[in-house]
């Protein structure tokens, strides 16, 4: 059973035209897999996760297909998607710390959500308590208001709630960005535990922090300017990436133990293209150190060059050929 996404295109409607935020994503996540989704701000990773769970204006479904466990996800239909939300596909949003109604006691809110989703609260309560124990939250939180909890606690509560129905696919959107390093580690470990205990079957972890992915992800997918750049098992991405962008990304990460008086910390020069009117050909060509003529005219397709290793780069295709 898996998540199969084929050529998914989702644009943002603006007065000036469509912003091609997600322009053709094709990938698969298998059961038990934790896939990391990384890239610069604006590369389309949040668009991808949002389109799968809550495709609302100004987002517009343009084309493609998403299949979860052999069922097509009707992501363009808000009503029909409700059958999948929470029970089969769920999310820990970026704004998790503000995700709970400030004037409702948490327990009351949970019971109301369950009631409206036709789940019996009473019989779910023992499992809910067990999950709270797992994330080290006291059962008392159910009687408190969100503002009585710290940021980390609220996030953990949202983690518990989002996974309560054991969804097949869980998407975690930048859930470690606002936390301190030790809490980041704890939260990342919790995600892995959720997968190990089979609370969730497939996990998509969206972040710009590759070091977290290094810790917990089985595979990493790199996005750039609305397109997929590379997808491979974690060790491959970190140690032997092949896409020029991925290479630059990895090498720009600071290493432990290196003094930067000796070696300068370099970023990737330039900026990502505006997606209102994206350039022809490969979208990375402006900043790519190995771009050549073909990159200017034709867009490289996202193809498998080795088992489990996908890439979209003409240069790398040449190498393989």
């Amino acid at each position, binding site marked *: 059973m898996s998540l199969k996404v084929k050529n998914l295109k989702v644009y943002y409607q603006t007065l000036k035209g469509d912003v091609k935020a997600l322009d053709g994503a094709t990938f698969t996540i298998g059961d038990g897999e934790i896939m990391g989704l990384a890239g610069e701000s604006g590369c389309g990773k949040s668009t991808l996760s949002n389109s799968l769970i809550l495709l609302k204006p100004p987002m517009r479904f343009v084309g493609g297909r998403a299949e979860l466990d052999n069922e097509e996800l009707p992501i363009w239909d808000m009503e029909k998607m409700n059958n999948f939300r929470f029970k089969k596909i769920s999310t820990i*949003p970026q704004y998790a710390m*503000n995700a709970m109604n400030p*004037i*409702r006691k948490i327990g009351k809110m949970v019971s109301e959500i369950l009631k409206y989703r036709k789940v019996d609260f009473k019989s779910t309560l023992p499992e809910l308590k067990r999950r709270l124990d797992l994330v080290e939250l006291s059962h008392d939180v159910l009687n408190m208001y969100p503002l009585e909890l710290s940021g980390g606690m609220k996030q953990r509560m949202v983690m518990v709630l989002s996974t309560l129905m054991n969804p097949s696919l869980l998407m975690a959107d930048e859930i470690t960005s606002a936390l301190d390093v030790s809490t980041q580690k704890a939260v990342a470990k919790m995600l892995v535990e959720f997968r190990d205990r089979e609370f969730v079957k497939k996990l998509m972890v969206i972040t710009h922090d590759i070091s977290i992915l290094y810790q917990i992800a089985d595979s990493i997918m790199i996005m750039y300017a609305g397109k997929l750049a590379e997808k491979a098992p974690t060790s491959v991405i970190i140690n032997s990436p092949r896409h020029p962008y991925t290479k630059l990304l990895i090498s720009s990460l600071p290493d432990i133990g290196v003094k930067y008086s000796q070696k300068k910390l370099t970023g990737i020069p330039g900026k990502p293209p505006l997606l209102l009117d994206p350039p022809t050909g490969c979208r990375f060509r402006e900043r790519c150190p190995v771009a050549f003529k073909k990159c200017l005219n034709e867009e490289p397709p996202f193809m498998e060059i080795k088992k489990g290793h996908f890439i979209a780069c003409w240069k790398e295709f040449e190498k393989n050929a």
Partner: protein
Amino acid sequence: MKQYFTRKLFIYLLTFFIAVTIDWLIPRFMPGNPVQVLLARASLHAEAAKEMYSYYTKAFGLDLPLWKQYLNFWIAIFHGDLGTSILLFPQPVIKIIMRAVPYDIFLLLPSILLSWFAGNKFGAFAARTKWLDNTVLPIGYILTATPYMWLAILLGWALAMVFPIFPLAYASSPAMKLSFSWMFIGDYLWHWILPFSSLFLVMFGGWAIGMRNMIIYELEADYSHYLEALGAPRKLVRRYAFRNAILPQVTGLALQLGIIMAGALVTEVVFSYPGIGYLILGAIQNQDFFLIQGCFLFIIIEVLIANFLIDVLYIIIDPRIRIGMGGKSA
């Protein structure tokens, strides 16, 4: 919590003090003499006038030094003595006001509460259906932009003159005697409908618009999005949005009270409805300072009490204030 209430109480007392002081200043600032005005009405022989003058000056305490008058004023208030009216001499002001208060309450309380509830409900409806939004919104804006007295005039003209369904003035027909009979109540309600409707409609517009805007704001909040992501049906999302949006509407009610009072005043004037507003008009026109003073005192007290009640209500319904005061946070 205690600190919060003591601080609020302090502000209310301070406001009361300042307002009462201003209220006391009114007759003192009037050029001319209240006693002279009184005497001018009873055109007396010069000699008799002089005598009456000194008598009344003493009676009203106007011969005492200012600070003593001020003190006496406060003492009198606490004794429930608001002086004697000049216009309706020799009736005590408090008696005149107390006669008008029930009429005010029966007019203001239903119109304020009903318009608040109905306005909020309609505003909430408008926020979720497009066609309703397109009708409720312009109507609401027009209503809230309409001056109170003009709507009163309009209703009076349309429903009392052009189509003589309702009476144009007063709270009861001249021949009716005040009693608790069905006949009197029916007659009163018949007179009451126009002023009530006038007040209700203008306020309704304001609340509907306010609520519609608040709900739209709440529907865009993070918690609404999260609910949607969890597949919660529209009903639940709307319910939460409504509950959250009501809070600023409650505060809004407290803030609007001063304006509503002014609106009630002019409405009563148009319909000659015997509330405090109507009294004030007569008092202003006849320079009856003590009556003016008393009326304003009543209005100040009414507004402060209402504000206080709303403050208490707000604490009950918004848990954030309660919790925030406990200073709790993990």
